[in-house]
């Protein structure tokens, strides 16, 4: 976790939001496990990671990002779309599902911060998230779902 030197939600609040979204989408039996020693998500080929982000603009400004491995992204999409075991997950479906995931997390982060503000439509990419050079990571936590790493982060303008 990055030291919280910038105006950002509290880590516990981000954890709570992620848990709420996870349980609502996947059911109470599916939880996120907090990782104190996160796995490096940057070492593999770009195709092995997906990222999704939303930006919040207004009284408070920031970007909320979710990054996860393709295995987790495919499994998450299959659960959200209630696909059967043999049904393939198309890239478009995967992008839509993790876009909706970050939309919900970003919307709830927005509600924690001073308003009024606007939430952008989600942006999804195959690969690690890209951030503006004038932003800084204010908050991050790493979790695992079904043993696969997932990273949640909040970036804010560099002050």
């Amino acid at each position: 976790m990055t030291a919280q030197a910038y105006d950002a939600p509290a880590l516990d609040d981000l954890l709570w939001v992620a848990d709420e979204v996870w349980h609502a989408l996947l059911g109470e039996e599916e939880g996120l496990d907090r990782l104190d020693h996160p796995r490096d998500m940057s070492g593999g080929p770009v195709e092995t990671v997906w990222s999704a982000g939303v930006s919040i603009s207004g009284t408070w400004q920031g970007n909320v990002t979710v990054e996860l491995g393709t295995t987790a992204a495919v499994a998450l999409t299959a659960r959200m779309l209630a696909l059967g075991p043999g049904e393939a997950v198309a890239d478009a479906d995967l992008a839509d599902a993790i876009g909706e995931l970050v939309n919900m997390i970003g919307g709830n982060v927005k509600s924690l911060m001073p308003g009024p503000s606007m939430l952008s439509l989600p942006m999804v990419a195959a690969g690690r998230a890209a951030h503006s050079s004038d932003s800084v990571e204010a908050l991050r936590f790493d979790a695992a779902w079904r043993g696969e790493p997932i990273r949640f982060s909040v970036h804010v303008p560099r002050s």
Partner: protein
Amino acid sequence: MRAMIIDDSRTMRSILRRIVTDLDFEASEAGDGQEALDQLESGADLPDLCLIDWNMPVMDGYTFITRVRQNPEWRQITLMMVTTESEQSNIVRALAAGAHEYVIKPFTADAIAEKLELLGLTAAVVA
């Protein structure tokens, strides 16, 4: 009864479709407010219920509600916002514009069922 699900996310439409069909609704879908208006204007059977996201391309959910409420022939349609937009001022704005209920994402199937029951649209219980 018929429900129209208006959300730019296919995933969210799929989740809501499962919930409302479990409650014995026939479901249709639209990817934004304009597409939903086009369906209403097409002459097809009107939905009893619209589940509406706020933040969508082309036409957002708030604009859709104001447009629906401008047409007296659509007065009987129940409008329920289902959205991540949770600022109090916007919730009040949507309700003042004509939304009957407001659900903030994430939600559970039970939460949707309870809201619909309160609106008198279903007595079914989600298992």
